[in-house]
């Protein structure tokens, strides 16, 4: 019988975090990067809930998670608005294609 405890949650969160980091650093598509960001945020949420449940005993962490979910949604909204704006001027959302600002 496998017991699921704090360690398992933390390992899962760390795994998610690494996946997110990998996606953020390798994807060139802006939406792909945004997905990576969401993965990392979810890892953080998982951490918070797990710590809150197993370690701390108050609901601080879970409340924080709710806030972070809202923040993630807001962030995605702003990011996608900016992607649309970018797409309208450059007809692509490949972040490497934006190379007019350099030096």
């Amino acid at each position, binding site marked *: 019988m496998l017991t699921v405890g704090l360690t398992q949650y933390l390992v899962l969160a760390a795994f998610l975090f690494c996946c997110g980091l990998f996606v953020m650093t390798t994807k060139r598509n802006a939406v792909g*990067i945004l997905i990576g*960001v969401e993965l990392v945020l979810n890892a953080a949420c998982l951490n918070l809930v797990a710590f809150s449940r197993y*370690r701390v005993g108050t609901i601080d*962490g879970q409340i*924080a998670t709710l*806030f*972070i979910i809202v923040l993630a949604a807001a962030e995605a909204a702003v990011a996608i608005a*900016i992607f649309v704006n970018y797409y309208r001027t450059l007809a692509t959302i490949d972040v490497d294609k934006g190379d007019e*600002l350099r030096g």
Partner: protein
Amino acid sequence: MNPASLNNWLPSADELHLFSPELILVGTIVAVLVAPLLVGRRPAVPALIAVLGCFVGLVATWAVSTQIADGPQAGMVPPAAGATPMLLADRFSVFYKLLLFLALGLITWLWLIGAQKRNGTNSASERGATEFFVLLLTSALGMMLMVSSFNLLVLIIAIETASLPSYALVASDKRSRLGAEAALKYVMFGATASAIMIYGVSLLYGRFGTLDLSVIASTLDARYAELRSTVATSAPVTHVAVTDAVFWLGLAALGVGITFKIAAVPMHYWCPDVFQGAPIEVTTWLSVASKAAGVGLLLRIVSVFTVTGPWPPPNLPPAAAGHTYAMTVAVLVGVLAAVTCTVGNLAALRQENVKRILAYSSIAHAGYMMMAAAIIVAPSAAGGASAATYNTGMAAVIAYLFVYLLMNVGAFGATALVVWQTGTDHLSTFTGLGRRAPWVALPLAVCLFSLVGLPPLGGFTAKWYLLLALGKTAATQPWLWILVVVAVINTAISLYYYVRIIRQMYLTDDAALPAFRPPGGGVALVSACAIILLLLGTLWFGPLGRRAQALASDIYARPPAAQAELSHRM
């Protein structure tokens, strides 16, 4: 305390009064949003509302500063055991509120001049006036919360409140290709940094079991006190360091978010691109307010994570002191500061675009300010705000930020006047400016020399207090002299690229370029900055330092509620 009353708890009038500046800002945002419905979409209306809001906000901040004269006050504490304050009103945050309102007023002024200048050519920016001011005021609100929060959750919300509107502001000129690209880079970098930071916060939550910074500080204090009492003078020092990976990972991830806000190494890559691509009012706002708030946040965090009892530790050998986590944090911040200002200055040397030069210059200045965050001093034992124990580093940063605001608004404002006239922001657009628009060129030259840090200008005053703070603390931590050396050598390096702009204005000329008449309001803005800088370097040299000391005097003091809480836990 019975649970029923806890459920019905709402902040008292006193508590709300403490945070009246923020509330006024919220009211202003609502007013800006509602105004078009009542009076139609006239571009001057939101600007006027914003200016009015700033003025009322300044008055309210002034009122708050008298209320907290005896020491910081905590707000938003539910009357329950274990509850800790979410927000804090102390002199440090009051200073930031004043600074942000001032910056907000100056940016609005600049925007009005720009709107006048662009009248007819770009009606898009006028139609976007409401959106522009809503975003600007919202990011200001976020920045105010950033420096007054004492809770990691509020901190995250504040950072996001400051960042999200900033991303959109960069793209506020919807027809600009560069703006679109800059906004994309900014949002990608920002989202990544804040995600990593939030993950770090979750780790710190796990490590300390709380999101409250004052509780984390007291935990660290307790651990430190325990070590001090057990470790004998000659004992091995291996156990002094905090060696848990969760703590350091969490702190490092938090650092990623903060360095992003400050645009410090290693999270500085976005800065030049965004500064170049954004409309120049937004660039000015980001370079001043966003950076200032980031530095304020860093100082808050460092004040929590470094100061633990008397410093240097009385019964530890100096070598052992170097192994405490406080020292490690300080050295890390110091190294980052040194690298940041060197990288900023070296990269600026080969730029051809004025906005990029100023962007790298702002990175370098962030480096100077971060140096002050590497200073650890002992807080007063009782936590009271006695004048003898103010943190010289914090005072130096406060003085620096004030001067930096004037220098940057002056430099960007003058650049804006030229860019709006000529339509390009390449260095060559400044050719012969000394002849073409002498009353823009002269204040710009003053601001640039001030950015170098040449006396008798405010930039030197700021740098002097910073070096003085480093030198003072170097008596116990000699490694800070290295930062002094790095800072002064960087001053010499930075001269070259600032002088390139001045050279372009005064030493080169092209008779084909016509003289032009800059708008009077713009000249007044940049001249005011230049004159105040000159005064700060001469007559107001001492007063600036004294005022900054007063404002920094209670950074370590905990509000009464929090202190009661601490003693309860310990």
